[in-house]
């Protein structure tokens, strides 16, 4: 039962990204061409509201549902890791027009060739695990 809340939030997320057409290959292509404000409006408004949410949680020392302080784990500083990893991610994002969330949502929308993309994403994740010690971080 404790998982039901995550199922409901997932449904909300899936509907929002689907109705906002964030899951559309065309919208991602359009975003990278700077032809439409739509995707920038979505990510931008989510981040602006997100900044207020995080600041509010930090300043009020907000507790989570189980009574634990909500904490944010800062990422280790590096440039190469985030930049090179990010560039690979961006290359793939522009090709398949879907980041990991939309990949799953597209299954629910009946686009079954997305399983090929997900298989690729799992293979890429595995590849990172294998090569990790040899990559600059």
């Amino acid at each position, binding site marked *: 039962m404790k998982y039901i809340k995550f199922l409901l*939030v*997932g449904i909300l*997320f*899936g*509907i*929002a*990204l*689907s*109705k*906002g057409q964030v*899951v559309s*290959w*065309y*919208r991602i292509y*359009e975003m*990278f*061409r700077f*032809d*439409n*404000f739509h*995707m*920038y409006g*979505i990510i931008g408004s*989510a981040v602006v509201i*997100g*900044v207020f*949410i*995080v600041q509010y949680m930090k300043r009020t020392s907000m507790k989570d549902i189980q009574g634990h302080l909500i904490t944010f*784990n800062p*990422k280790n*500083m590096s440039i190469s*890791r*985030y*930049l090179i*990893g990010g*560039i690979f*991610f*961006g*290359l*793939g*994002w*522009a090709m*398949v027009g*879907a980041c*990991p969330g939309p990949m*799953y*949502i*597209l*299954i*629910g*929308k009946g686009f079954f060739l997305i399983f090929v*993309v997900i*298989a*690729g994403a799992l293979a*890429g*994740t595995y*590849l*990172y*695990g*294998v090569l990790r010690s040899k990559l600059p971080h």
Partner: protein
Amino acid sequence: MLEAVYRPWPWYVVGPLIALTMYLLLYFGKEFGVSASLRATCSAMGAGKKVKFFDFDWKKQNWNMVFIFGAIIGGFISSTFLEPSNAVDLASSTKLTLEQLGFERVGESFLPDQLFSPEFWTWKSIAYLFVGGLFVGFGARYAGGCTSGHAISGLSNLQLPSLIAVIGFFIGGLAMTYFILPFILPF
């Protein structure tokens, strides 16, 4: 009112709903980050026996699997009940560019037929989808997060690493869109 539900939702509705998703997950004691589930899936399939990176307690990501399952259901609900039209009302310049490249039925459904419609598949298009997915999976883990983890959660927390990652997302995405895709698409 009901008609507005059936039309595509504007950015100022969808953006806040994504922020709400992040808020709820934080309130439930979790961090919003979809690509972490890919690592957990590799572990669940036994990758931890061979590669140390996958040797971790993947069951701690069970909530994320349930969240993703919910997202799949959300996509189904949206397609089945909330989207009478599949049309994507693209900017005319984007539509024109794709038509000039040779895409057909541009924006008439969510995804281009030439890439995602089962009738159109070729070994080339399958390889393309797999390689694209590979880059996404590899890049997300290398950068330590994807759009949800870095662009939404990380930027909301004003983390410099996430800003660098998002700049990387755009360098890669722009290079692909302008310098590579015009020469390989459509098949």
